[in-house]
């Protein structure tokens, strides 16, 4: 698995997202611009300039015509992917830490930071799919997080729920139309630093994975917030993703430089870790970054994955034959049985 190294950011990466058909990659970093790349060869398609602060988050719509971004300049911006034009700026009171489109691209959510005088919120915006059309400046819905601020959030299947991960390690489920909180479950360890650092969906958005500073990732049912699986790592986690086609999950993290006494990359555990999604067992690791992995993303078509590091690099990997051939005896037997029937 030979990675392609994408050099376009000068600061730590914050988020990577693939387009729906896996051909484009979007990356954000603390250096104030968004990059778009061709996933197969790492060629840069373009950059999107306009934000006046560190970028925290990016998401392409399912039609791959628009991207949304959120930044430390207290704005969410909407961009035309093809022309690079900024179509809309929504202003907030505090930094925007996460944006995500719902499954048909008609709505966008934004997670805002908590700061003196301002509670953390999750805000819903309407998005006009027409790149030349007028965008609605109104905030359709605002959910206030009184207990513990949200750090990440996303839309479930049918845009039924908004699910959020919080600073205190809990996960909430809200009615996506009314904003009413339906459930809150303490899925990550409450006694230690357990901030939920990432939340990414299965392809059909019926379940999701969370990553936490408590060194675990959890697979959770979106309907009832029941924890289905737990993946135990030996380092604080910043990101986790479910791989399509193979029953794996990929975790990324690592001790921040200020928290380790040695600077050895081995000590810092700067590796992408592959676990079997169903058996919860670690399968392998991929090395390469010189700092913690801040974000991991999986190609929706199952062909590869990408990681973004505190070191400022994006590494794009295309899976090889060994990856696709790998399966447990139990899985092989089940497949054979299926074929026989």
């Amino acid at each position, binding site marked *: 698995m030979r990675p392609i190294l994408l050099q376009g950011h000068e600061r730590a990466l914050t988020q990577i997202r693939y387009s*729906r058909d896996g051909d484009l990659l979007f990356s954000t970093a603390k250096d104030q611009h968004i990059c778009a790349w061709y996933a197969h060869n790492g060629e840069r398609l373009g950059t999107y300039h306009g934000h006046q602060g560190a970028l925290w988050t990016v998401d392409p719509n*399912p*039609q791959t*015509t628009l991207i949304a971004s959120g930044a430390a300049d207290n704005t969410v911006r909407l961009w035309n992917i093809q022309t690079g034009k900024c179509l809309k700026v929504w202003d907030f009171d505090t930094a925007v830490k996460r944006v995500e489109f719902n*499954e*048909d*691209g008609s709505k966008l959510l934004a997670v805002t930071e908590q700061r003196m005088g301002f509670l953390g919120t999750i805000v819903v915006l309407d998005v006009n*799919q027409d790149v030349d059309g007028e965008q609605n400046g109104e905030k359709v819905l605002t959910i206030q997080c009184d207990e513990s601020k949200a750090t990440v959030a996303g839309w479930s*299947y*049918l845009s039924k729920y908004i699910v959020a991960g919080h600073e205190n390690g809990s996960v909430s489920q809200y009615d996506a139309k009314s904003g009413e909180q339906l459930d809150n479950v303490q899925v990550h360890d409450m006694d230690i630093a357990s901030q939920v650092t990432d939340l990414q969906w299965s392809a*059909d958005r*019926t*379940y999701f994975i969370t990553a936490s500073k408590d060194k675990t990732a959890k697979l959770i049912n979106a*309907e009832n917030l029941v924890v*289905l699986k737990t993946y135990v790592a030996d380092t604080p986690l910043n990101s986790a993703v479910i791989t399509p086609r193979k*029953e794996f999950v990929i975790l990324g993290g690592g001790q921040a430089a200020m928290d380790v006494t040695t600077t050895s990359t081995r000590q810092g555990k700067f590796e992408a870790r592959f676990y079997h999604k*169903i*058996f919860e067992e670690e399968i392998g690791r991929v090395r390469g970054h010189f700092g913690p992995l801040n974000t991991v993303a999986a190609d929706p078509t199952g062909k590869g994955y990408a990681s973004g590091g505190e070191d400022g690099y994006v590494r794009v990997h295309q899976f090889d034959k060994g990856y696709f051939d790998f399966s*447990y*005896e*139990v*899985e092989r*037997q*089940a497949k054979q049985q299926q074929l026989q029937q």
Partner: protein
Amino acid sequence: EDKDRGASADLAVVEHRRRLYDEWVQWRQNVLDDIKMEKQELNLPEDPLEGLIKNTSDEENQIIE
């Protein structure tokens, strides 16, 4: 004897995995069935994007015309 013990331990591991695997497949099937029903009740297409992506290409065609 040690060999036997190892073999039965292996067997236990495999049986455990088989149980986990079957559980997962069963759960997925239930979820997929439930959503199918829910979508039918709401009169929604199977794929949330099917209609949308067709619409955009229709619009593009119209522009070309």
